[in-house]
Structures are given as C-alpha cells and as structure tokens.
C-alpha cells in the first residue's frame, strides 16, 4: 500500500481515482442518489428473477455456453466470419484499438459520411471511435438517450447500461436545453420528446450507422442487438451503411444457446423479462427488401482480449456486459462510476480495465473492492469477480503485471518499490505474530485501549454523521479515525479506522460472569473480541455487509 501513501503525479489514473472518489464520498446528495438507484435496480433484478423458477440453473446454463464459446473461440470466430460473408457482409479483424479505428474511419471516408449515428456500444468507447470518426470530418451522434446526454456533457459513461445514471433532473434539463437551444421544462417526458425530435432527424439523414453487438451467432453469422429505446433498430435500419464493432469474445455457437443468454442478460441488466427490442441482423438487406442497410461491415476487435485467453483471467471473457455487478457493489455506490476512469465500471471494470489496458498505473483498481462477493452472487455468467480481483492483487503484490495487453506495448511490470513492500510484508508478519498468540494479542489490545485518548485528539468522525445512510449510528458504537498519526496515516488515507474499544470483549466477559457458565474468556471466545482491534478488515467488511444486499 506504499503506492497509496506516495503523492501521485498530477494527472495519472491513480490521481483521478483519488480525486473522483473523494468528491463522490463528500457529495451527500449524489451518494443518496446512487444508493437509491441501486436499491431500485436490485428490486427489479429480484422481480425479474423470481419469475424464472430456479435462477441458479439458468446462470449455470449461461456460464456453460460462455465458457464453451471462449474455450473454442478460434473455431467460432472462423465460422462466424464465414457466415457473415456468406450473408453478404464484410468482416475485418482488428488486433488493437488503432486498427479498429482505422477500419471504421476508412469506411466513413470511402462512403463520404458526413453524419454518423451510433447505438450504444462499449467496445466503440473502448477503442475511442468517436474521435477517429470526427477526425474524418463527420458529425458523430450517440443515440442512446443516456449516452447522448453523456456525450453532450463530455463525460465518460457512468455505468455499463446507464451512461448517465448519476445525473439528476436539473442537470439533464440544463444539458438537453442547451442542445435544443430552448428552455425545456424539468419534466422527463418533455426532455425525452425533445431528444427524440433532434435524434430522429439525425437518424433520417445519417450516412453511416455504428452499433455494437450483444451477441454474434456463429452458426448463421447473425449480429444480435438488445435494446429498449429503438435507437439500435434505427441505427441498423435507416443509414445506407451499417458498421458493427464487436469484441471478439461476443460469440455464441448457435440460436438455441442464445436462450439462456437473452433470458438473463435483460433480467440482470435492467430487471426486465426482455427488452423492447431484440434485433437479429444477418447480412445487409436482400434483393427485394424495402428497407435496411445496403452494406454491412463487421469489425471484430481483439485489443487485449487474446492476451487474457489461456491465463488465469480467462473467465472474465464470459462477461455479457449486463452491468449488474455495479448495481450490487457497495464500492461502486460509494466512489461512483467515474472513479474507474474507464469505459468499464463497477467490479467488472476493476477487473477488465487493468487486463485490457495494463495494470501499470492502475494497481489501485483491484483494491477498489471489499471482496464482499455481491457481484459474484449477481453475475448471470458466473464470472468469479472476487477471485479475479484477488488474483490481480496478488499480481500487484508480486510486482508483476498481468498479461501484457498489447504486443507492442512496453513491458508492464510494476517497478517493485523495495522499502515500501518490505514495510508492507513486515506489517503483516507482525500482525500474524501478534494475532496468533493469545497473550501478546491481549497485551496489544490493552495498549491500543490505552492509546485511545491520543487517537481521539486526531480528527475523529462519529459513526453515522458523515457515513453513508446505510451505516446505522449504532452499528459501530464508536468513533472512527479519519486521519491517523504517523505510520497509521498510510492506512487512514484510504480507510477509516475504528477507534480501539476501551475494553475488549473478552475482558468485559470476564468481568460479568453469567450465572451457570464458567467465567472463562480464553480460547475461541477471545477471538470474537478481536472486533475492536482488527480494524481495517472489520470496517471494510461492515460496509459490504451481505445483509444490505438483500435490500
């Protein structure tokens, strides 16, 4: 954790992480907004899953299809590409973001595209496609309502399925009013209607439509889009040229294996049985068809994915991008989606971002988790997010980065900071030495209790006053240390430290013997008392209390 105490340079992912996290934590209304957002999403998630009978079996089915596809990806890629071409589409393979941008920009240039409409696509955000298209002179419009608002605001997506979930009505009114050039009322329906008018005109006059793909069906070369607003259908119907940009792992073998994926994608993502539109596109329009694009291009993007294949991180490729891990994550709601500084937010972002873009400089991301497992429980594809976060932490600790994302990239190993990691190792060895010896432990507790007055002189936050709504005032019963003295500060820079209890549980227990029970405080009973003085572990687990997940 040495890296945490080192003053980060001005504009690094780490510095932005610190700044955004602090800003979110201190923004009480935003905090409550995100809290409420998650509670609502979790409610719909439950509603949609109650419907399923045994949801676990469905998740097994999704995981089986995804695992199989990823394990045979070369085979399905070849089959998919053959079938897309047989249906009259063009397929390009892009090794990295630059190649993918160049393919799509090349199509835009060849077509002389002046107006491009986009249906929300994570991979196009990942490769920075908008800027490349704008560089060709085209006007690029995001057409998903949330993505449109985020684009107008010049912000990254806050959430995989809801790019503007953090924005409250006044801000959205301001953004859409400015875009419309008129003062719009603060009513969602009126704001949506205004966006509809603006965007309808763009759809009808666009030269190029760019979409992502939720799934590619290998057996028929079909691209499947799952949307609610209809912008996906517009983008793939109205412009004369349609470009699909998709991550290479987004395939499924055939139509029947789509059933569990479609069934859980929408239930996990938006808490609906199914979205308004599921669109399956096989090639460009056929002879005699009255509408649909004349040309279809499919750009299959690697950009770091093949580097994950065959490693311990392979299961991350099972992800179907529903975004539900962020809807359950206590850390996401505390630090907000922009803290991930990536197109991928939430627990999947904490795993995927370092794997795709390199661990170097992003060593903090795997630690942005309490490992409470709420994401694991929610994930429809059984991506073992907590395990993968732990693996990444192990890589950080070992000073070796994960798989290098890009063959051409500089070696991404983390320079081992000698003194700091020695300190870290020493700290843990010391803790182990104390915690495994009863007498030493008791002595340490007494010393800690004695230090209370000293610590109380430091800025102390009373539980419940500044803490999130879910931290009940009585939950800790004691103050929490915001800024510790000396070495302790390295810890409190990133966490709150509960003050040591005046007396340990074991001591209290001994003083108040129960009638009929031996007044012994030793052995395993004693370990219970550790609550007051094993602070960091305790506090992080409290805030990820599984009981809260049930809400």
């Amino acid at each position: 954790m040495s890296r945490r105490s080192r003053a980060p340079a001005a504009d690094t992912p780490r510095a932005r992480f610190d700044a955004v996290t602090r800003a979110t934590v201190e923004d009480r209304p935003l905090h409550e907004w995100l809290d409420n957002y998650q509670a609502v999403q979790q409610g719909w998630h439950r509603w949609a899953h109650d419907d399923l009978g045994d949801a676990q079996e469905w998740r097994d089915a999704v995981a089986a299809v995804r695992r199989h596809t990823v394990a045979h990806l070369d085979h399905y890629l070849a089959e998919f590409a053959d079938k897309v071409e047989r249906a009259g589409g063009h397929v390009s393979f892009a090794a990295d973001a630059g190649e993918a941008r160049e393919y799509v920009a090349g199509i835009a240039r060849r077509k002389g595209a002046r107006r491009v409409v986009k249906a929300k696509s994570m991979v196009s955000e990942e490769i920075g496609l908008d800027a490349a298209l704008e560089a060709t002179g085209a006007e690029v419009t995001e057409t998903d309502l949330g993505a449109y608002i985020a684009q107008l605001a010049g912000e990254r997506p806050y959430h995989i399925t809801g790019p503007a979930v953090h924005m409250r009505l006044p801000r959205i009114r301001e953004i859409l009013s400015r875009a419309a050039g008129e003062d719009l009322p603060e009513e969602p329906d009126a704001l949506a209607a205004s966006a509809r008018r603006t965007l309808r005109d763009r759809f009808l006059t666009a030269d190029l439509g760019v979409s992502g793909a939720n799934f590619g069906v290998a057996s028929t070369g079909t691209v499947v889009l799952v949307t609610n607003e209809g912008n996906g259908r517009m983008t793939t119907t109205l412009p004369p040229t349609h470009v699909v940009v998709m991550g290479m792992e987004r395939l499924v073998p055939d139509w029947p294996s789509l059933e569990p994926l479609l069934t859980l994608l929408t239930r996990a993502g938006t808490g609906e049985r199914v979205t308004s539109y599921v669109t399956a596109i096989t090639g460009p329009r056929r002879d005699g068809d009255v509408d649909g694009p004349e040309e279809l291009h499919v750009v299959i993007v690697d950009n770091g994915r093949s580097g994950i294949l065959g490693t311990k991180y392979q299961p991350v490729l099972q992800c179907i991008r529903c975004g539900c891990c962020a809807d359950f994550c206590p850390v996401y709601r505390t630090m907000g989606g922009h803290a991930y500084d990536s197109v991928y937010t939430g627990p999947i972002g904490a795993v995927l971002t370092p794997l795709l873009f390199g661990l170097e400089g992003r060593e903090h991301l795997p630690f942005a988790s309490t490992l409470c497992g709420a994401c694991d429980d929610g994930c429809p594809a059984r991506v073992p997010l907590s395990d993968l976060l732990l693996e990444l932490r192990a890589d950080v600790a070992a000073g070796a980065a994960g798989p290098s994302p890009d063959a051409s990239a500089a070696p991404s190993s983390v320079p081992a900071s000698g003194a700091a990691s020695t300190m870290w190792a020493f700290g843990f060895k010391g803790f182990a030495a104390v915690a495994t010896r009863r007498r030493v432990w008791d002595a340490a507790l007494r010393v800690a209790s004695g230090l209370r007055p000293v610590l109380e002189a430091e800025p102390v936050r009373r539980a419940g006053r500044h803490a999130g709504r879910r931290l009940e005032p009585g939950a800790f019963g004691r103050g929490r240390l915001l800024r510790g003295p000396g070495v302790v500060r390295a810890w409190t820079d990133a966490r709150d430290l509960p003050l040591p209890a005046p007396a340990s549980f074991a001591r209290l227990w001994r003083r108040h013997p129960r009638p009929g029970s031996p007044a012994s405080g030793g052995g395993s009973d004693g370990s219970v008392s550790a609550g007051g003085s094993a602070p960091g572990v305790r506090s992080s687990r409290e805030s990820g209390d599984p009981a809260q997940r049930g809400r």
Partner: protein
Amino acid sequence: MDRDVFIARVAARVCLSAAGDVPLPSRVVPPGITASRAQLGAGQPAAAQPGAVGPAAGAAGGPPEDRDRLIELFAACLREAGGEAVRVPDRRAAEAAIAAMARERGWTSLSCAPSLRRLALDGLWTDDPRCADFGLSEAEWGIAETGSVVLRHRGDRGRGHSLLPPVVAFLLPASRVVPRPGDVLGRLHDAAASLPACVTFVTGPSHSGDIAGVMCYGVHGPAEVRVWLIDDE
C-alpha cells in the same frame, strides 16, 4: 490484421487454456419459467418441458385450454411490458378496430406492407413509415412468457412499419403463440437457410429510464403498441 493471422493468434492462446475442452451442453434448456404461470393459475403447459425445443414444441395449436392459457399469459406479460393485447375472432374484426381507431384519432396516414393493405381506408395508406401516424405489421410468432411478437423482415415486410410511427400494431394468428423464447430460437435455428436479413423481437413500447430513472415511453420508437390476436388463424 489478416484474418488467418488473427485467428491463429487466438488459437495459440486457446491452446494454453488450463480449462481444456469445455463441452457445450447438448441442449441448454433450464427449467420452465413457472412463476408467471402460477400467477395466472395455469398449469405447466406440456410443451414447455425441459428439452422441448424445436419445431415440434407446442405452439398454441394444441388443445383449446392450452391455447387459452398461452394467450392469457401472452396478454399478461405484454401488459406488464406496457403494451396491449386484444383477442379478436378474425382478421375482419381487427381491421374494423383499426378503422375505428383511425377515425377516432384523426389519423391521416397509416403505413404497412402492401400485402396487408386490405382495409377499406383508401387514401390513408402509405408505403413510407417515416411520416405515418400508425404502422401495422404481420407477426410471425408470439412468445407467451415474455409478451413478445417476432417479425421476419423480408421483401415488402419492412422494418420501418413497426419502428417509426408513434403508434404501432401487430396482427398475430393465435395459433402462433409459443410458450417461450427458445421455441422461436429453435425454429429459427432449424430454418437457418431461409433466415431473412433482419428478425426482430418486439415487446411493448420503446422506453428508457435514462432521464433520472423516470420511465419515459416512445423515446425513439413507438410509444404505443397493440397486438391483435386472431383467433381463427
């Protein structure tokens, strides 16, 4: 990157995988969606047994009580998705209902495929859905467990009629309501050779919660969706 190089690179990585061979389950069919049926007081339709995916799996062509149950479930799920299902005895009744709606709402322009244009509403029909008040499409299948209609867009059955007008409707033969999405996916799989360029599953109106979490309807697509279930087809 060259296709062969790209795929060879993936193949080389796949070989490293410790997971080894992961077989695709022979047919991925988890248990039926039971809760919504229970709500309706209906039993488990025989067709939705695990494993029953494919052309033989029951459409609502079976015994009349099974058909009624499926249609009831379809209507309930579509209602929950914000749409409306209306059961009519035959195509004429649906056409009369459209004519009544057009008069009542003062529509001046209705769009649909020429092959559907059998109504006595001369002068109102247009081929161009971009400025129509209402769009009509023929649905291929209905899915009871989600309230979806499935459209196969080919020839004059354009994509725009069900997307661009603010109000859209679908004609769905009642015998073509199947229990679950897998029944349709199985049929599409079996008829892969004749797959059209676009197949769309439509479930209720276009909507979004992107503005401060408040549900808005008709964001890009139609705000109102109606399905006429035609009993004698």
